[in-house]
């Protein structure tokens, strides 16, 4: 409570009025939406496909509900948000069962046509199924330690497989690509015609790119290196690192804007073309 009860009352009254107006506007929008939906996608029409029409209406409604967040967080948005999470999870469970667990685990074990087939399945599936079930022990605080056997195997095997492959793909091949233009620039082929037109076109560009990448990498790493005080030359390198970071963030941000707008364009196309049935010109 503030020191001005009258001001509080006025404020509360204004909030109530605003909420009433918003609820009225929401009810009106729902009525408009349903009317438009029934006109453009009437599931009761003679030649209509009811499942498709209802699906389109629900999809359009949920799209508009999700965009209602741009005005303000509201109960309809919360319903849509929870529905999205729930439906995704439900769909994942059904697909995992239908496409993976039933044909590869359940049917070979519980619907085996012969005893020999069952024994064969058991031989191949027993260890992975048991290790998978052990993971569920995480749910229990008392027996959670049992899951460590599965995790130990996963992490040990994962690291063993990943280290050589990742080292090759992310470090060695990247280093080779970074050094290759510089190597080619001083190689015998380049030395034959240095500073010729072909040299500038074929070698100078990649060399310049490689040098910029090298300087940028060192400068950015130095910016995050706090063991040495960033003074004089160090300060200049650090500032150069910030510039490289800003250019990188700018490029990423530009692409992010493009991506988000693409999603909006996709939804607007859906609403106009599929829900409202407005043909594309």
């Amino acid at each position: 409570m503030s020191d001005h009860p009258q001001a509080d009352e006025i404020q509360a009254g204004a909030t109530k009025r605003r909420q009433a107006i918003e609820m009225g506007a929401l009810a009106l929008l729902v009525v408009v939406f349903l009317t438009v939906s029934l006109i453009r996608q009437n599931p009761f029409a003679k030649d209509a496909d009811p499942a498709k029409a209802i699906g389109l209406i629900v999809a359009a409604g949920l799209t508009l509900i999700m965009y209602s967040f741009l005005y303000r967080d509201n109960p309809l948005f919360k319903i849509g948000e929870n529905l999205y999470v729930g439906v995704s999870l439900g769909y994942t469970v059904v697909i995992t069962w239908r496409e993976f667990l039933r044909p590869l685990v359940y049917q070979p074990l519980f619907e085996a046509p012969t005893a020999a087939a069952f024994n064969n399945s058991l031989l191949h599936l027993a260890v992975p199924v048991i290790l998978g079930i052990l993971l569920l022990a995480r749910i229990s605080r008392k027996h959670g330690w049992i899951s460590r056997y599965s995790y130990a195997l996963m992490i040990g095997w994962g690291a063993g497989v990943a280290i050589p492959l990742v080292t090759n793909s992310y470090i060695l091949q990247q280093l080779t690509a970074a050094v290759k233009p510089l190597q080619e620039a001083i190689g015998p082929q380049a030395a034959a015609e240095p500073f010729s037109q072909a040299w500038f076109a074929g070698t100078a560009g990649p060399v310049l790119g490689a040098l910029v990448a090298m300087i940028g990498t060192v400068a950015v790493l130095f910016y995050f290196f706090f063991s040495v005080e960033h003074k004089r030359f160090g300060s200049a390198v650090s500032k150069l690192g910030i510039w490289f970071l800003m250019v990188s963030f700018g490029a990423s941000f530009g692409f992010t804007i493009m991506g988000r707008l693409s999603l909006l364009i996709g939804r607007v196309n859906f609403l106009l073309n599929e829900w409202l049935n407005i043909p594309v010109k």
Partner: protein
Amino acid sequence: MTTNQNRPRHYELVRRIIYVFIALAVIVSYFYHPKQDFSPWIEVRKVYDKVESLSPGDHLFISIDYDPSSEAELYPMCLSLLRHCFKKGVIPIVMTPWPTSVGIAKKGCDEAVDDANSMFGKKVVSGKDYVFLGFRPGVQNLILKMGDNLKGAFDKDYYGQSTQGMEALAGVSSLRDIKLLVDLAAMGTVELWIAYGTDRAGIPMATGTTAVMTPDLYPFYQSNQLIGFLGGLRGAADYEKLLKIPGRGERGMPAQSATHVLILLLILGANIRMFAGRFLRKKEGLS
């Protein structure tokens, strides 16, 4: 620290006005769009040229690593790639390691099959002209397994047909027998496919990704670990243009341009306002 409470009162209003303008720009572009001429990116052209260089009967592997939330950007790419394959007689092998991607992968296959009939007069048959393998979990393990034995990783396709002896998979025993692998990704799977799949199998790889992910692909493109890539809706539009089959990508370009111009104008306007305000405050302070 700026919080919702101490923001200027007009902030919410301005924010909503900007949203309305952006929405209007997209909606107006849907109805009115002047013809735009744009030249495809070199990265996209390289992917197109690679598919174009494949012979009928060659295999192109497509991994669907996106779900419906990224449909706007990646579905047009999937459709264009499949149409290109069917047009050339290349056999696409489609699969997904994500349960939420199964529906959208099947939708892409079905639509491209219908298009092959209506656009190229070809009757495309599952198991003969293309394969939809469906879903298997465990991305890294799955890639490693397919690198050794593709039919062991998928003993049946999505429709329940056995992959052993399948006409479309004749001559394919592992990823090494694939002529080009394309990862259509909205998740961080491109790096996994490079490390566990294509670098190991020694086959060329291309990607189609959301615009957000595109900048991260350049190091792999410059090291030739990727032969090219399709970046965002623009990448899809470029591929459609090269293929000469317009689709959702090209249709989205006028709206992209309109909204980009609007954003640039808003940035310009906000900067002018800021500098003008600073100038006026300085002037008032001096006088």
